[in-house]
């Protein structure tokens, strides 16, 4: 029997890497037996019981029904009142980081934790890539991505599976996007969160072709916004700035606050830029290029190369904050000082980081 290839993605058993075959609706590994099923044109490997998302489950299910009836754009226009959320789902600029990727046209890209398909659709809509594979663990969200791919005739292959155990054969992608994903990797696991994140990155490295690229979108543990009290992934302010053990204790004590009911201590680790560089190096990545995602990594159009003082200084000149009175002049001087001292990289709030797998 021929192995099952979901158009672009070669599926392989998450446990033993045996190539997955399809028989009727069953997806099977030659060694491990049945590992998933084929449902509504989507290979599904994760349980339908678990749900997580910006949109409550019942509303998400209704949205999917509407998307099938009237189209996904009309469904989110009618069903979602939050403008930011609608833009987050539908903006064609969600994947503008891809312009900085050094790779030939016709590449295959994996979008890990694809959510509602904003990045996958923007990548596929760019016309630059042969296929985009959207990996999403939550069935309702995978279903929504499938609806928008079908409606917009986008070259997206949706796979519903846990991103820590992707059912994918090794060395098949030219680029892998981890946008707002790495920090969540250890949320539902045991053991040290950093070890889980490192193991996850090693797994991602394995999926890349030699010379392939990972594109990481993530917050800075010590970013300026954290000091201003922005909510951390724990749902609480300042936890990223605390020593890990104190943050863990604090999360356990304040379990009744927003989003932190699920906290079993502090497990959503973020790092400083140096911390990410070390983590990527330990995972086997090379040639790391960090960018300050000026408007956040979910709006990755304005990307400032942190390894170039000339570019950062040039950016300040281009913005010309001096035109805005004393406050503008102060901002101008502070940013210039940030470039001169190297503190810009230390306190940038959010990063888009590109890193490569070695060619050999």
């Amino acid at each position, binding site marked *: 029997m021929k192995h099952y290839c979901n158009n672009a993605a070669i599926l392989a058993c998450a446990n033993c890497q045996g190539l997955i075959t399809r028989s009727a609706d069953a997806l099977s590994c030659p060694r491990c037996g049945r590992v998933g099923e084929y449902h509504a044109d989507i290979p599904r490997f994760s349980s339908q019981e678990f749900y997580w998302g910006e949109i409550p489950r019942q509303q998400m299910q209704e949205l999917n029904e509407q998307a099938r009836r009237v189209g996904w754009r009309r469904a989110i226009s009618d069903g979602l009142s939050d403008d930011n959320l609608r833009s987050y789902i539908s903006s064609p600029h969600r994947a*503008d980081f891809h312009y900085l990727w050094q790779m030939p046209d016709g590449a295959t890209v994996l979008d890990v934790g694809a959510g509602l398909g904003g990045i996958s659709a923007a990548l596929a809509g760019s016309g630059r890539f042969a296929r985009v594979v959207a990996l999403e663990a939550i069935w309702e969200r995978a279903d929504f991505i499938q609806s928008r791919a079908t409606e917009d005739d986008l070259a997206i292959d949706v796979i519903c599976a846990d991103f820590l155990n992707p059912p994918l054969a090794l060395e098949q992608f030219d680029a892998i996007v981890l946008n707002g994903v790495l920090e969540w990797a250890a949320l539902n696991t045991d053991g040290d969160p950093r070890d889980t994140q490192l193991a996850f990155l090693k797994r991602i490295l394995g999926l890349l072709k030699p010379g392939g690229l990972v594109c990481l979108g993530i917050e800075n543990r010590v970013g300026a916004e954290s000091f201003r009290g922005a909510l951390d992934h724990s749902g609480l302010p300042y936890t990223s700035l605390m020593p890990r053990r104190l943050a863990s204790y604090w999360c356990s004590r304040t379990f009744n606050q927003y989003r932190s009911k699920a906290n079993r201590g502090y497990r959503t680790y973020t790092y400083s830029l140096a911390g990410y560089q070390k983590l990527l190096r330990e995972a086997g990545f090379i040639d790391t290029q960090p960018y300050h995602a000026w408007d956040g990594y979910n709006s990755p*159009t*304005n990307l400032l190369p942190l390894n170039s003082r*000339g570019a950062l200084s040039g*950016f300040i000149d281009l913005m010309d904050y001096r035109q805005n009175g004393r406050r503008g002049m102060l901002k101008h001087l502070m940013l210039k000082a940030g470039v001169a001292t190297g503190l810009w990289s230390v306190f940038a709030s959010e990063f888009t980081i590109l890193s490569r797998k070695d060619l050999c």
Partner: protein
Amino acid sequence: MLDVLSDHLKVAGLAAGTLLQLEARTGIRWFAFGESSSPIAVISLCRTAEHIAEAREEFAALTVLEPHAAVLGAPRPLFQFYRGDALVSARTGIPGLPLRGELKSKSADAFEKQLRIVGNWLTVFQTTVVKSGTVRDRVNELSEALRGRDPLPNAAEIAILERSHEFLDRMSSIPATAVHGDLWPGNVLTDRHETFVLDWNTFH
């Protein structure tokens, strides 16, 4: 995209350096930097028909002005190519900071200084880029172009044309001059006593 841009910049004799990516009115814009804070090159990706037309007009203007680029402080055109439906257009970067858009009433000295900078540059510009003929010739050309335009000129435009014809004889002795077309403080940059001017898409 980065591969393609690097190759084109190499052909143009420039090292790609590090790219800063910014959102621009016309689409996305990349600034290639080396060690200094002045960009080596500025590359625009234009997607809409209107922005593509603007970029093509500016590239054509910079090509005409290229022999005088150093004197005028204008960028030099580098390359243009289509990528799918989008146009990629590149020019050299220019150094400096723009003139102030707003000045306080007590800043008379600064205002005078800015006027002097622009005045000096205009003198250089209009004596360097010499247009043949007179203002009368240009007004006649414009009238012809407008009359043949689709859509036809509106009532206000016709009134202006008719009024201008009343003065045509007086304009026959005034030589025609080159016009930047969008000269405002944001498009005039200064760097150590040198003046540079941006945005040439309305040059005529």
